[in-house]
């Protein structure tokens, strides 16, 4: 389904599709970009988002940093893959929104807050909704070493 076009075309999908879970890895903001690509990446992002839809920094994370909750770990995730997608759909579009921030809590690894965000994924061609995800991220400060 993912790499054999002859097989994929004879399947009920009718074409090669991407592994649905690749939505996250393909839209993941890399923690590191090689220097020679950094400028091109930011220029591309600016050209694709003329209305400035890409904020410099997530306000919630900035507040977490201020409180000393600087370490990230994903606590859980739920993704609904609404429709298959693959070659021919153009680029992937995503829009995320922070929907909930918990009160400060003591957790196994220290003290922190749980930040929930919801992301919607669409195709560039046809603007089809292909996925919705809810992610719960723990931002914490380690209390024991």
């Amino acid at each position, binding site marked *: 389904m993912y790499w054999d076009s002859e097989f994929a075309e004879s*399947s*009920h999908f009718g074409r090669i599709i991407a592994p*649905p879970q690749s939505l*996250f*890895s393909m839209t993941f903001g*890399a923690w*590191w970009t090689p220097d020679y690509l950094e400028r091109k990446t930011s220029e591309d992002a600016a050209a694709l988002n003329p209305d400035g839809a890409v904020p410099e920094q997530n306000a919630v994370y900035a507040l977490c940093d201020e409180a000393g909750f600087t370490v*990230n770990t994903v606590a859980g995730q739920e993704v609904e893959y609404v429709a298959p997608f693959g070659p021919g759909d153009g680029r992937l579009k995503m829009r995320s929104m922070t929907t909930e921030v918990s009160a400060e809590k003591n957790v196994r690894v220290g003290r922190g807050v749980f930040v929930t965000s919801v992301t919607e994924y669409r195709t560039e061609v046809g603007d089809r909704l292909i996925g919705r995800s809810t992610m719960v991220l723990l931002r914490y400060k380690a209390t*024991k070493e």
Partner: protein
Amino acid sequence: MSTSTRFTTLDWDTVNEGDEVTGVTFPITMRTLMIDVAGTRDLYPIHHDREFAKKNGARDIFVNTMFYEGLFGRIATDWAGPEAFLRKLRFSMKSPNCLGDTITSRGSVTRKYQDDGRNLLELEIHLANELDPDATVANITLELP
């Protein structure tokens, strides 16, 4: 990874609630983590810097969210066949799977139903390591043709 890949898709009519989902077992080696980090471009230090991980309350460096997405999707479609489509994936990471651990999965079909003309199955998959029999627990909705 000890798993068998099938090239024909399971017939929904022949699946029953309670059926076992074929498991996998494999060690998390430095190579596993290296491929995980490089393949997902996730250079957050908790996945490759042992000192950083331990200082922040983890036993050691551990596999990331995208690793679980890939693994759970693979367990589901290796069992059900290529024309199965992952409709929903929800999982919680109760404790991390770290360098040196061996992951073993176990799972079963928890529900079989039709919705909007779709043939659906719900699977529950647990990942165990030496310290935690339920380190990661996933609920999957799978659609069969």
